């Protein structure tokens, strides 16, 4: 590889990092605290603001999916207390009082489903704990989108199939509804039917009711029959949710479609109609596809909710507020101060011990941190204290890589080799050492990062990315700087 090409690679890497990190920079240093706080409101709560403001907040919300968030321990977050509503469970089991065991079992399942849903929600680090006997506290890192958070946490996940009541539906007229879309005279709907709506997000992400349809009351099949759910795109590139039914569910579905050919089947999630396909023929195999007017993100959230299963009981938000960081502002300030002192110490030490070569190592170290931040921002990573621990270890390993290289070069110089030869064989010998040391650690962290538990995952992701970047900055970049420096200043004796 010639030098120009190598310089180009380094510049491209820096360019990508600048591109990756710039939203984070804008977010924390250019936007006002007030605007940032506004993005923590839901679309419904923003209705009171002028249209222009709402649009700019919407843009900011979009941007937030490309920045580094600070986790609960560093900046606090949304704090929600959820309470199960046992009324429905009582009705279903037909008893007046639920036994202790029934309630405990319901709670356990709610917790399990919540964990499942939130774990798959993203790279954020939420915490879910019980409080007392039947309260659940969910804490979501502050900068997460409250709209999405609420959809995922609160959506019941109840999927039902109903047949369309074509007779009554065809009788519906626009003038039978008032301005807000409510039916004025409820008696037009027969007792054996119900009125449900299609829903669609408007330009400000507020859900609005669309077309009303009358459906028969009897649930033909529900979400418990679902085995798998995933998001795909159809031949036109539109997102669709597909799911496979269990053996039992598939049999039921076959029966339903067999006797109802020519009718329309409504697929309803949490009381909202998703899709209403016509049954053209009997459908064996238990593969169901929902297409409709929704975005990729919506489709993903739906699939996520369907996969995790439905809550056995509906949940209610008993309390919702924001909390400060669990570390406390004072601890964080102290930590930042300590980190700055540590960084200065390392830079000075490398300069003092390795002189000009130490300066090259310092540049590589700074570049390493910058590239790491760019990558984390691009991943919309939530930084927590374990994540910072991963960064500290990255710095440690980056310093280590350079120490290994420099000690090798020194050895080669002592063996009487020329400057260029020492650099070359020093790097070659050190490369194998660094590769093996980094690879073993990378294997360990990669396995850990596949493990969906908050603190461990945060640590493992930062360290894995850090190690990969380290191989680039500590070996490739420093070597390039050495070669450039030696050529430019016709170095006879290395400053190392």
């Amino acid at each position, binding site marked *: 590889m010639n030098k120009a090409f190598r310089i180009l690679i380094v510049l491209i890497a820096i360019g990508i990092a600048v591109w990756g990190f710039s939203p984070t920079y804008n977010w924390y240093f250019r936007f006002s605290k007030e605007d940032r706080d506004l993005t923590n409101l839901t679309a419904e709560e923003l209705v009171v603001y002028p249209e222009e403001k709402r649009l700019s907040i919407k843009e900011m919300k979009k941007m937030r999916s490309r920045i580094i968030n600070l986790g609960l321990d560093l900046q606090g977050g949304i*704090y929600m207390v959820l309470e199960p509503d046992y009324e429905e469970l009582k009705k279903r089991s037909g008893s007046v009082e639920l036994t202790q065991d029934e309630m405990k079992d319901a709670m356990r399942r709610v917790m399990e489903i919540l964990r499942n849903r939130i774990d798959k929600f993203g790279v954020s680090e939420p915490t879910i704990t*019980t409080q007392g006997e039947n309260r659940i506290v969910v804490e979501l890192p502050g900068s997460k989108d409250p709209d999405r958070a609420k959809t995922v946490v609160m959506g019941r996940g109840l999927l039902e199939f109903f047949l369309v009541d074509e007779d009554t539906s065809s009788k519906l007229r626009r003038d039978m509804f008032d301005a807000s879309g409510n039916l004025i005279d409820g008696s037009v709907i027969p007792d054996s039917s119900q009125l449900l709506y299609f829903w669609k997000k408007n330009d400000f992400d507020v859900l609005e009711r669309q077309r009303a349809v009358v459906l028969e009351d009897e649930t033909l099949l529900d979400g418990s029959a679902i085995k798998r759910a995933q998001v795909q795109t159809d031949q036109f590139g539109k997102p669709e949710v597909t799911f496979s039914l269990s053996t039992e569910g598939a049999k039921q579905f076959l029966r339903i479609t067999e006797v109802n050919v020519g009718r329309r089947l409504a697929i309803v999630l949490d009381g909202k109609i998703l899709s209403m396909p016509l049954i053209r023929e009997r459908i064996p195999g238990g593969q169901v596809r929902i297409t409709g007017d929704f975005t990729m993100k919506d489709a993903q959230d739906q699939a996520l909710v369907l996969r995790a299963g439905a809550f056995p009981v509906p949940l209610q938000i008993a309390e919702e507020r924001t909390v400060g960081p669990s570390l406390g502002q004072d601890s964080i300030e102290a930590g930042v101060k300590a980190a700055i002192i540590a960084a200065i110490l390392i830079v000075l030490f490398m300069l003092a011990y390795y002189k000009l070569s130490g300066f090259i190592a310092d540049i590589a170290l700074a570049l390493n941190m910058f590239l790491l931040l760019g990558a984390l921002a691009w991943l919309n990573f939530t930084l927590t204290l374990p994540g910072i*621990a991963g960064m500290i270890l990255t710095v440690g390993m980056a310093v280590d890589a350079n120490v290994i290289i420099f000690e090798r070069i020194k050895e080669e110089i002592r063996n009487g080799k020329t400057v260029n030869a020492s650099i070359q064989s020093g790097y070659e010998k050190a490369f194998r050492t660094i590769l093996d040391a980094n690879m073993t650690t990378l294997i*360990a962290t990669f396995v850990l990062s596949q493990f969906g538990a908050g603190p461990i995952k945060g640590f493992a992701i930062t360290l894995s990315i850090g190690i990969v970047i380290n191989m680039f900055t500590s070996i490739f970049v420093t070597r390039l700087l050495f070669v450039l420096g030696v050529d430019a200043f016709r170095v006879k004796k290395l400053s190392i």
Partner: protein
Amino acid sequence: MLHSLNLRIIPYRKFAYILSAVIIVAGMVNITLHRGLKMGIDFAGGNVLQVALADKEVEIGEVRDVLIGTGYGNNVQRIDDPQRNIYILRTLTRERDNDKIIEDIKRALIDRFGTSGVIFERTDVVGPKISRYLMRTAYIVGTVAIALILLYTTFRFRFRFGVAAIAALVHDVLIVLSFISFFGKEMDTLILAAVLTIIGYSLNDTIVVFDRSRENLKSSKAYEDYDMTINKSINQSLSRTLITSLTTLMVLLSLFIFGGSTMKNFAFALIVGVLVGTYSSVFIASAIVVDWHRWKPEKVKKV
């Protein structure tokens, strides 16, 4: 200055074995006597106490100091409320004496801020943040990670080197856990992060030393004097080992000194970990390889 060192490390490995064994056995006995490590709220759940302070000028640090004074930890969170000054204090459950814990904290808060200065809004029992299910998965993940590391090191080095590296790693984790129990510190997410960091550090350190042994073990002559070849390898990489440990310790000491009360435990675990990690890669890991060779000499093999 460091490159001319030629310490006799391998011949004295028995002392290192004894030292490590004493610490680990004492640590494990201590942990067993206390029926396991002390688990923090993150792992064990605990009590939560919500208080509103009349004086809006009071800062979170002061509230935390009161909690630290009672000896029930330092977990304080402020609720964002511009009108009022509300804090959530979390403490560990100690089974029967929950009421006493709440009572002690209430008294300490009243002593500090006055009877009319604090309103107790709510007390409750909270479950752990890190559930048992999560911990179980952690064991499985740990086993998979160890298996893969062993596979890689066998492929790049030799099986026995891989086993020795894993042994050194387990050794380090056990010693750090022993120290956590000696000093009566609680296991929380911070300490968990510290233990993970130590694993990464120790592995890195050991592999670097092994790499030198691999390089030096190229001739059949090197095999004849196996002990001294390994000893020479340790010495050759000693300058790097010491410089790296020194820089890492500089970072950790500044965290320990300037990082505030919450960061202290974290930095403490890491300092112990780095010292132990360095020690094990110099005195333990290679020593295991040497003794393995004595037990079953390995054949000359070009790598």
